């Protein structure tokens, strides 16, 4: 401004002749001409088509099997879980199935729930991330968001608090392979390293403890969630390092699903030993289920999913089909546009007159 005032003479108040102020900035003004739009449409259609075909081929190579075990062989357990009084009683059942064609490569074992709303606002909020990252203060004084699962009847703080943790899926599975000739073999499942790296290493931490203390002492003064059978520090009797808040099952459960029907990873086939080095061989299998999780009250379903993966994940037919449909639609539009442009279009003709 000082410069402007410094000017003298009749042009003292003349605005600067800069491209910006005179709105003459060099600019690119694109226009939707037939030369640009039509080729773009055709190319788009082509790309979508190629992607769709490629994805479809990829998806075709995956194998997947889904077993709904809510009822059927587990009818008895299902009935049993209806009654809250018998909640503590164990119930086991076995589901049998056959794999026609072998599952090649890594095989993933999921449990699925239907009609279970992990995405309810109050449900999702009912957790205390501060507690689960190991803050001592939060451990003893869980956030009020956890209501009504903050403290038990005796007033002890619940760890981990909240509705999410309280409703943890607690069925357990043992997958057996019935080799034609010999006795059933337990299919080895890796139950570790199936979480997000950040969850396991950042988001969920046990409270800090001295080397002399064990986990149970750290969690002293807290109560287990209402529906839990075991306290949090004793979730995995086999691996001490998989206990407390950093238990993989807990972490997976705490990553809430976005939709009422969802599946969560239970384990991955451990391919160290034969006959599972190349995946799951074809044959008969059975799953021994420890049927604990009641779905009957909310009319839910439970299922088991076994699947192999490709570079873009598990079996997902929607994406390639959607791509193919999109491609054909774009192609249709492109053809229609071309016809309209040639027959009725005024673009170009009118303008160049």
């Amino acid at each position, binding site marked *: 401004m000082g410069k402007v005032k410094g000017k003298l003479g009749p042009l003292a108040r003349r605005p600067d002749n800069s491209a910006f102020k*005179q709105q003459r900035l060099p600019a690119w003004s694109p226009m939707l001409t037939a030369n640009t739009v039509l080729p773009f449409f055709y190319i788009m259609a082509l790309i979508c088509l190629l992607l769709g075909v490629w994805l479809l081929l990829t998806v075709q190579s995956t194998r997947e099997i889904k077993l709904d075990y809510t009822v059927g062989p587990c009818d008895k357990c299902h009935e049993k879980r209806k009654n809250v009084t018998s909640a503590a009683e164990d119930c086991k059942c076995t589901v049998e199935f056959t794999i026609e064609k072998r599952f090649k490569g890594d095989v993933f074992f999921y449990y699925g729930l239907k009609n279970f709303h992990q995405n309810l606002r*109050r449900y999702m909020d009912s957790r205390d991330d501060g507690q689960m*990252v190991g803050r001592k203060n939060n451990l003893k004084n869980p956030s009020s968001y956890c209501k009504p699962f903050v403290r038990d009847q005796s007033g002890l703080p619940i760890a981990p608090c909240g509705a999410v943790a309280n409703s943890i899926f607690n069925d357990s599975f043992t997958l057996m392979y019935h080799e034609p000739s010999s006795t059933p073999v337990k299919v080895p499942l890796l139950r570790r390293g199936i979480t997000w790296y950040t969850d396991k290493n950042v988001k969920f931490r046990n409270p800090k403890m001295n080397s002399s203390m064990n986990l149970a002492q750290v969690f002293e003064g807290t109560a287990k969630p209402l529906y839990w059978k075991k306290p949090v520090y004793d979730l995995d009797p086999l691996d001490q390092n998989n206990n407390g808040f950093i238990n993989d099952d807990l972490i997976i459960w705490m990553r809430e*699903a*976005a939709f009422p029907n969802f599946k969560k990873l239970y384990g991955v086939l451990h391919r160290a030993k034969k006959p599972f080095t190349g995946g799951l061989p074809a044959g008969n299998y059975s799953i021994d289920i420890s049927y604990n999780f009641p779905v009957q009250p909310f009319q839910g379903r439970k299922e088991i999913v076994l699947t192999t993966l490709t570079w873009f994940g598990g079996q997902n037919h929607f994406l390639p089909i959607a791509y193919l449909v999109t491609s054909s639609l774009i192609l249709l*539009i492109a053809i229609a546009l071309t016809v309209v442009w040639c027959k009725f279009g005024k673009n170009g003709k009118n303008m160049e007159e």
Partner: protein
Amino acid sequence: MTFFKFPCEFMCLPLFLLCWLSLQNEKWMNVRVGDIIKLENNQFVAADLLLLSSSEPHGLCYIETAELDGETNMKVRQSVSVTSELGDPNNLSSFDGEVVCEPPNNKLDRFCGTLYWRDKKYTLNNQNMLLRGCVLRNTEACYGLVIFAGPDTKLMQNSGRTKFKRTSIDRLMNTLVLWIFGFLVCMCVILAVGNAVWEREVGSLFQSYLPWDPPVDNFLFNAFLSFWSYVIILNTVVPISLYVSVEVIRLGHSYFINWDQQMFCSQCNTAAEARTTTLNEELGQVEYIFSDKTGTLTQNIMSFNKCSINGSTYGEGTDPLGPQPKRLDFTHFNPLADLDFCFYDDTLLESVKVGDPHTHEFFRLLSLCHTVMSEEKSEGELVYKAQSPDEGALVTAARNFGFVFRSRTPDTITTTEMGRPVTYSLLGILDFNNIRKRMSVIVRNPEGRIRLYCKGADTVLLERLHPCNQELMNITSEHLNEYAADGLRTLALAYRDLSEGEWEAWSESHRCAGKAANCREDHLAVTYEQIEQDMMLLGATAIEDKLQEGVPETIAVLSLANIKIWVLTGDKQETAVNIGYSCKMLTDDMTEVFIISGHTVQSVRQELRRAKERMIELSRSTDGGKEAGMEGWGEARFTGNGVREGQEEGGGGGGEKQLHCSSPPPPPPPPPLPPPPPPPSSNVMDSISGEFALIINGHSLAHALEADMETEFVSTACACKAVICCRVTPLQKAQVVELIKKHKRAVTLAIGDGANDVSMIKSAHIGVGISGQEGIQAVLSSDYSFSQFRFLQRLLLVHGRWSYLRMCRFLCYFFYKNFAFTMVHFWFGFFCGFSAQTVYDQYFITLFNIVYTSLPVLAMGIFDQDVPDHRSLEYPKLYEPGQLNLLFNKKEFFICITQGIYTSVVLFFVTYAVLSDATQSNGVPLADYQTFAVTTATALVIVVSVQITLDTGFWTVINHVFVWGSLGSFFTIMFALHSQALFRIFPSQFHFVGSAQSTLLQPVVWLTIAMATAICIVPVLAFRFLKLDLKPQLSDTVRYTQLVRQKKRKPVGRSVGDAWRGVGSMSEGRLGARGGSRRSGYAFAHQEGFGELITSGKNMRLSSMALANFASRHSSSWIDTLRRKKHTPPSTSGECSPAPSCVSGSAPPLSNSSSVLGGSQDTPIEEETGAAPTQHAQSVPTSSTQSSQFVTPESEPAAPQGQGHAQAVSAGVFSSSPLRCHGDSAGGWMLTLSAVQEALFGWKSISARTTASSSQGLPSVAKETSHVE
């Protein structure tokens, strides 16, 4: 008319003298009522002043009222005699009078008040007042007493209320926001109902995992909570940031207007200024422009441009393509020449030098026949004080061509003719008035020959020529037609030689006429008529009322842009029409020009009807292909002044003079109205073809604006291509604007420079003030200001258009964006049990509108251009979408919303369908909430970014930076928010830790986003392409040609452009075409009365004349005439008063007779001790037949009748005016100044005074008065 009894503050104006002995400089803001102020020449009067005294003799001073009424001629004001005698400041400081006056009002032409001083009363009227807005001219200094200041001044009272201006887009936006609110509530209700159902059916079963809130264990309560939760979540659909963004964009546009170099005027060093920042896009929608004339269209400079002498025309007739003609240099030829005078044709100068007698006589006439006063401060340094600028231009022209008017006394005129001093004796001035339309002087040259010189309107003058002039007349009138077609103001000049005998005889009859008891004016006019016969034509002059630069071009361009331009001026009809022609608003090939000048409701209504019928008739015939016949009609209808007189009996114009002086002729009996024709439906009027113009006078406008005629007026006027309203008051200007606003729902723009335009500027949607001229009243109340009318086209066609375009694109995108963003929550509601769970991370919701998407759309809203600026000036038709409101209206809004909802559907369901079943490449399912949130958010940001790239038509660096920057910032911020560092500090707040990383590394996610984007964008792209292909807008075409041109890198020529510029483009040939019309270019800004002023010698300085031997030829005083003009209906010359009812005499318009004289002497005086509210003009009705001469003699004998203390006062007054004789001595009456004063202001009062005693009440006043008479 009533007087008000005032509260004390107004009644007793304390007279406070502003530090007399050391005249103090004060700011106008400090001026208070009661101050005495010294004004100097060319100063702007900034308060309503009572003129106390002036440097000129007799307390006269001259003012220019262009700011008030647009009239360019000078007006004269005189102070009350007692105060004018006070003279210098020292005496004035002892002045301690008291003024009682009317309350502040908006009538510019009236003032009633009384001055009490030294136990006497003096009536004050408008003639004593200097109103705010005037400019003091030709007067060295004057002193005035502040009567009204600040908002009480008449000007400010006229300026109307200041309104809060909002644009139509603003109003639409408010409506839409309300609708969106309704929509929001609907959505929330739907979701709440859904929630109630869900909680009852499903939620109740799910209670073991998530019990209901303990206090009210009820699904209905849950639904209630859910309703409010959704109100909070979905409120982003109501764009709070919209208003802020809109204001920011407007601010940007305002800066661009301020910065525009092409709207900078280097002469006055003024850049355009957007004084408000809220109206910019409205500039792109203007349909009606209301323009002032003086100072806006014209420069208020008259220049002698062309002349026709003895059949040959002089002046710049060279073709415009030739070399610029050289300006003549007069200095060698004539040492007395005015250096500012410009003339380009040297043949005229040659002809003068050669001594062509006709040329000499021509300029002699110009140097003699006028009422200009000269002042010669030092030898050769002449200053002319012209009452009208036209006259000044003519006399200056004569001066430069060697016929220098040097000085005058009441009965001589001294000139220097070709270097030789000559003194003519002035035998008489046959004054100008609006009916005569001419003035003459009779002079005796040193050789003793008597000659009458006459100049006047060609229509009048050519009729009075000697028959032998026929041939010359034909040639000259051809020239006159040419001049008129160029919009020049023309005057025809003629002379007549008089023999001594003729002169004697005439002067005798003239004297008799002057003494005539009744209708003196008319008798005089008849005698004038007698002598102004058989004249010899000399030639004609053409004066250019200089238009501002580029006015015709601007008007042409604007009317091509379908903008209707109305000129509203306070000036005379002729002047206004003339300007209409010179700026090409009116053209000779117009089908018809209607003039509405009726004085009664009936006649105005009839004229309007007639005009309308003609229009329909003519447009039908045009449609029927009967062009030939139509032309004939048009021809036939042009009479006299080239325009059809609307109604002979009602019009004030060229009617026959009425000699019978019976009291006001009965108003023309309302002619039996023809059975009202089936009122043409509005669509008929809309489809009128053919070019019509309407000219309406202020007094007719007053009727036309009445409630029952409004619609008729609007429908007629809007069917016309050009509308000119003349003689309108400032308030009427505003009323016209309001009328159009009300009936047409169109965007109006008012442009003006003067204080008289303030009300119009304030009431129009957009007010534009022309700055750089005198006075900044208009600028101060305007929304935009610049210094040249021609900048208007840039303001509207470039800035306005862009603003509108940008704003519309911005709004469309903004609504789209918000709907796309918010509606995802709605769809998600169906999957999350209507539990008011959001789709996105809370930070994303916060930042989406503020950070991620605000800048690209702001950049588009500020910088976007569809076509370059010069293109939009080349193709004015590009302006039309704005007027029709095509770019953003309810339909467009719904399209945007639909697009937004479509986008949200795609975003949600595609993501849902893909993710619910997908897993990461390491087997972890992708269906978790955080992945879903991140994917949807990313897809949303990408889709809306792609959309803005489609919407942006002008990619500057800034757009690139903002679009890419926004995308970049989205990813940066998201990664930052999902980082471990933040999580470690606030684990509960940033629980999305790691989501961005683990999600965006997945190819599935990107495939999903890509597909969602494609599905969102492809239909839009296809739709836009189709629209462009099948129904290209003009802007698209222009853009396309631009593109092609850029590619070819060579100009293709204008062929494409011309095709689009359409019919109206003013080709030079057409402009020059001179139709066969017989329009007169006469428009002389002159006022009656100055002839008498000169012959009375009143306006001459004591030094320049011997007062002793001046003798007034006429018994009535000049100023009386002036005053009378003020009170006759506006048709003659006075300013039009907004409410005709205030003219108490209600004289018939045509009669210029003396009946008016008495009838409208509305200067009351009360001899009662002042406080009693007195009926005003109560004595008028009976005195209507009385002419002024008889008042005094009659009232003198009446004086003794008055008893009581009033007697003394009246005696005192009389004693100051001892000379009250009247007789038919050669010298006529000898009047001293005070006698004139008495005659002016007192005569009426005397009669009143004599009858009214202090003890008598009102009724007796009236009674007694009538008794006296």
